[in-house]
């Protein structure tokens, strides 16, 4: 799991970097035009930290501890570098996921599902938001639910994460007709309708990267 997670973080950083301009364009329509720039900075910081400290993290007690430390480190880097609402929200998502992995039962697929649920729950709690408000939760919550449904029906890790990815991507597109009632987009009222939420889009991007790594 540890190797998959580091691969995921690095792939995510690449993808965020590639999509930074597009994410910023989404944020320009209903925000202040900095989501891509901020996320790029945050994920670049994660990669820089990995380059410096990956060896010590990997030498931790066991796979679960190493994975949890990895995600906690990533979460803290996001909090310290991203800024805006995305920093605390994504940071909390990673920290909660780390907690779920540390408490995991050693079965990767189940642990990942628990991590997704913890991440979504953390964001909902900190952001005081729920699905339907045109936020990252509109990708994360469906993703966690789809992952849970997949594992309950016996799917393997790759299929579980693929289900999460599909739900996240559908969720992100699903934000287009929504009226924003949270975050900067909410100041626009009706004018937020018709635009895809940047936070939901970046969440879906991260889940796509996770699915790609899980199916390797």
């Amino acid at each position, binding site marked *: 799991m540890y190797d998959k997670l580091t691969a995921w973080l690095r792939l995510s950083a690449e993808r965020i970097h590639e999509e930074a301009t597009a994410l*910023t364009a989404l944020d*320009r329509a*209903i*925000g*202040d*035009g*900095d989501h891509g*720039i*901020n996320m790029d*900075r945050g994920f670049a910081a994660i990669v820089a930290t990995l380059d410096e400290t990956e060896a010590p993290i990997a030498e931790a007690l066991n796979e679960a501890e190493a994975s949890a430390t990895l995600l906690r480190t990533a979460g803290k880097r996001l*909090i*310290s*570098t*991203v*800024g*805006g*609402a*995305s*920093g*605390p*929200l994504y940071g909390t998502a990673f920290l909660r996921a780390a907690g779920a992995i540390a408490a995991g039962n050693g079965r990767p697929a189940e642990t990942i599902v628990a991590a997704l649920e913890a991440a979504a729950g953390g964001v909902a709690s*900190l*952001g005081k938001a729920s699905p339907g408000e045109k936020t990252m939760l509109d990708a994360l919550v469906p993703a966690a639910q789809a992952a849970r449904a997949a594992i309950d029906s016996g799917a393997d890790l790759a299929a579980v994460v693929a289900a999460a990815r599909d739900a996240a991507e559908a969720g992100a597109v699903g934000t287009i007709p929504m*009226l924003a*009632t*949270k*975050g*900067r987009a*909410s*100041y*626009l*009222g009706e*004018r937020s309708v018709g635009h895809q939420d940047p936070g939901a889009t970046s969440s879906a991007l991260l889940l796509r990267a996770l699915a790609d790594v899980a199916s390797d």
Partner: protein
Amino acid sequence: MVTTTNAMKKLLNRVEDIVPESLAGLAKAHPDVVKIDAANNVVLRAGGPRRGKVALVSGGGSGHEPLHGGFVGLGMLDAACAGNVFTSPVPDQMEAATRAVDGGAGVLHIVKNYTGDVLNFQMAAELVAGEIEVASVVTNDDVAVQDSLYTAGRRGVGGTVLVEKIAGAHAEAGASLADVTATALRVNANVRSMGLALTSAIVPAAGTPTFELGDDEVEVGIGIHGEPGRRREKLSTVDEMADWLVEPIVSDLGIGRGDKVLAFVNGMGGTPLIELYVAFNSVARILEGKGIGIARSLVGSYITSLEMAGFSVTLLKLDDELVRWWDAPVHTPALRWGV
């Protein structure tokens, strides 16, 4: 009238250095007033923490200068945390600032009501919990956003400047954290604002305007981060446009004949002072017509949005105590009187 510009024709070296270089410039221009914690992009009052004085810490995205770094000094802020342009600063910055200015009498965080600012300041307060007493006041004076369950709440805009000055004066006089906090809350409760943009702004790292406005269009109910506002209108006379801003403020504040206000006409950064004074004249005429007295005023670009052309109106309902704190000495890069 042209509203498009050569997007990146700005005074810059490397885009990524804009924040640290602007802070260094601020400190070099006002070495007797501020110093910079360069590792954390924090502007600090020169002379170190003052024992027994409540310290005021604020912060936010860069690009709103002089807010907040230009308001650090005697009678106003003790520290200001500078985030990336239009991006909330991170908890590490507020933690460093809070520790640096703590004089043993507690610290007041003045936070503009944006989700990012609120969350990052909240996390910072948690980082010092148990060690330093921190109170927080969230400013939310913008009437353009309907304060309802269905938005992120009203934004903190021009009123924030008045909260910082008035609470800052009360803190300078040696008041307790509870009293300074109460004053800040009282200003926030009695102030309302609304803004209008003639052009958009261009975030240096993005390189393009944050929204498009036609030559004859204005964006009404803007925030300060270049985000679009509530509605678009055709450009009109400033007498009429001032009314679009003043009416909702007066109505929401519930003021009328016999009341006295501080009238603050703020430039968004790209509007010349001559136009701000024309706008103030319009605002003054409207208030005179309503029998509302202007006891104090402030005109200039104090809470800006890079080069956005436009203005905002802020009205603070005054009483004798608020006037006293407004008049009290202040010595910061952006405001100086009485000293």
